[in-house]
């Protein structure tokens, strides 16, 4: 069983876990009532043959115990072994390699493509791209995301990567700190995430222009940058797949594990942990891409989220449709010129 994760493809195993309940019901030797009747019969016909009792035990169904506590009435649970095989197998292995590959790919992209710089000269006329609420929501999510990512990575990979280097005492201290930070920053991340979704959902709704962007990967690998609205299809992909789907999946599964005092069963927490592990690997991988594009990757992108303002040239080159809408007055946006603009550019 411990080799399950390596023998069977990970997707098949995940499916198996999801269907475990249904499959068990189908292959189970019988209902509790049937097994009781078999046992009673056997006691008469073949005394000391307790096979039906052992089948009942293996079913993992709750029995009776006078000891209080969660699932103390279950003698043996088999799903723990499946959880172990998935966590120590594909999630650790594929998740770990995914992150290594993503970091290398980003580094490679940077060395080949370099920073995407402005082509035209800055005009000095600044347009407000992110309001106060946008920025507070974004940066609270960004900071808490980084804390969650780093502490989560320590909890999953620290034993393999850090422990051999820094030793048991120091690593246990670091892991305890990581666990507590993960647990207490988690709820802050959830609140920030919800604020971010509220702030950015409107301008992330799909548009016709997104299709063209997707077809040419936005000109990221050469060619002309495809005109886009306030957010291009790449940013929208990050918003919907990363922030909304993975963010909410992380929040829900995280809360299930964070509050073990609601008597949820081990099977529920195991499933939550599996989803959390797979989702987190993808979330961090996408997050690395977003962080790269928002800092090193695109000139002016970091200043935009820091000060809230972008130069008119930047708007025209990266988000032409948004720029045109502001120029034509279709979108109301604050603009700054002169000294203030000068100051903001220096940030």
């Amino acid at each position, binding site marked *: 069983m411990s080799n399950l994760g390596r023998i069977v493809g990970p997707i098949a195993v995940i499916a198996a876990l999801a269907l475990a309940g249904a499959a068990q019901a189908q292959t189970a030797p019988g209902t509790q009532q049937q097994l009781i009747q078999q046992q009673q019969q056997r006691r008469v016909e073949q005394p000391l043959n307790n096979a039906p*009792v052992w089948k009942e035990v293996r079913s993992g169904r709750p029995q009776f115990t006078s000891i209080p506590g969660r699932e103390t009435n279950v003698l043996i649970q088999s799903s723990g072994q499946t959880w172990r095989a998935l966590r120590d197998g594909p999630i650790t292995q594929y998740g770990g390699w995914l992150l290594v590959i993503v970091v290398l790919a980003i580094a490679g992209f940077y060395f080949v493509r370099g920073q995407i710089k402005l082509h035209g000269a800055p005009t000095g006329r600044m347009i407000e791209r992110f309001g106060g609420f946008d920025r507070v929501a974004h940066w609270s999510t960004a900071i808490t995301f980084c804390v969650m990512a780093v502490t989560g990575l320590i909890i999953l990979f620290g034993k393999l990567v850090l422990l051999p280097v820094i030793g048991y005492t120091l690593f246990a201290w670091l892991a305890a700190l990581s666990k507590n930070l993960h647990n207490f920053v988690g709820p802050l991340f959830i609140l920030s995430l919800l604020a971010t979704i509220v702030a950015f959902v409107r301008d992330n709704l799909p548009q016709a222009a997104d299709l063209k962007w997707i077809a040419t990967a936005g000109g990221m690998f050469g060619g002309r940058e495809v005109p886009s609205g306030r957010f291009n299809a790449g940013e929208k992909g990050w918003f919907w797949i990363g922030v909304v789907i993975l963010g909410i999946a992380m929040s829900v599964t995280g809360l299930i594990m964070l509050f073990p005092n609601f008597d949820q069963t081990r099977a529920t927490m195991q499933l939550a942990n599996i989803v959390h592990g797979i989702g987190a690997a993808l979330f961090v991988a996408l997050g690395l891409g977003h962080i790269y594009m928002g800092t090193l990757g695109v000139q002016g992108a970091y200043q935009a989220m820091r000060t809230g303002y972008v130069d008119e040239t930047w708007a025209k080159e990266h988000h032409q449709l948004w720029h045109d809408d502001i120029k034509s007055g279709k979108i109301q946006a604050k603009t700054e010129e002169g000294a203030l603009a000068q100051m903001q550019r220096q940030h």
Partner: protein
Amino acid sequence: MARMKFLCDAERCIACNGCTTACKNENEVPWGVNRRRVVTVNDGVPGAEKSISVACMHCSDAPCMAVCPVDCFYHTEEGVVLHDKDLCIGCGYCFYACPFGAPQFPQAGAFGLRGKMDKCTFCAGGPEPDGSEAEFEKYGRNRLAEGKLPLCAEMCATKALLAGDGDVIANIYRERVTVRGKGSEVWGWATAYGQPKGGQKPAPQGAKS
């Protein structure tokens, strides 16, 4: 070196919970934690009721050890699975993984915040020096170091629960089965000791579940 194991004889266990109580008292187990418990299958059904005492089985390929993020578990030379509470971070993963529900967590704060994990030590203490005050406070009595066996089995009124060298207790059980003529299931052995490693003997013939 002997390989320590537990064996519970379902034909003999009368669900008195004497083992649970003996363990709690001997080891001064934390509030809210029971290192051993008796589970009754088909409770109250005539002709189908069987009771089994269960605790940490000190598995050969221990799932708790495999999933622990800080690697705080270790096998003693006698095959007992112990853990270091100074390293434990209370994440609960051993509780997810264990087939027997052995790891328990004293509540350390609001919302079910977990304290340091506590489980059966086969009355073998922890990493501190044998018989020290620090060892007793964290893990309970180190009876093995005193040349004694776990108190749960020693106190068992019907000798349903056996603890000790796996070969010795398997022989005792085999004699019982020979006298009875049937019923050789050794509960939990295939799960706990099923994958032999390092020259350990596999579970006795007829082991189930």
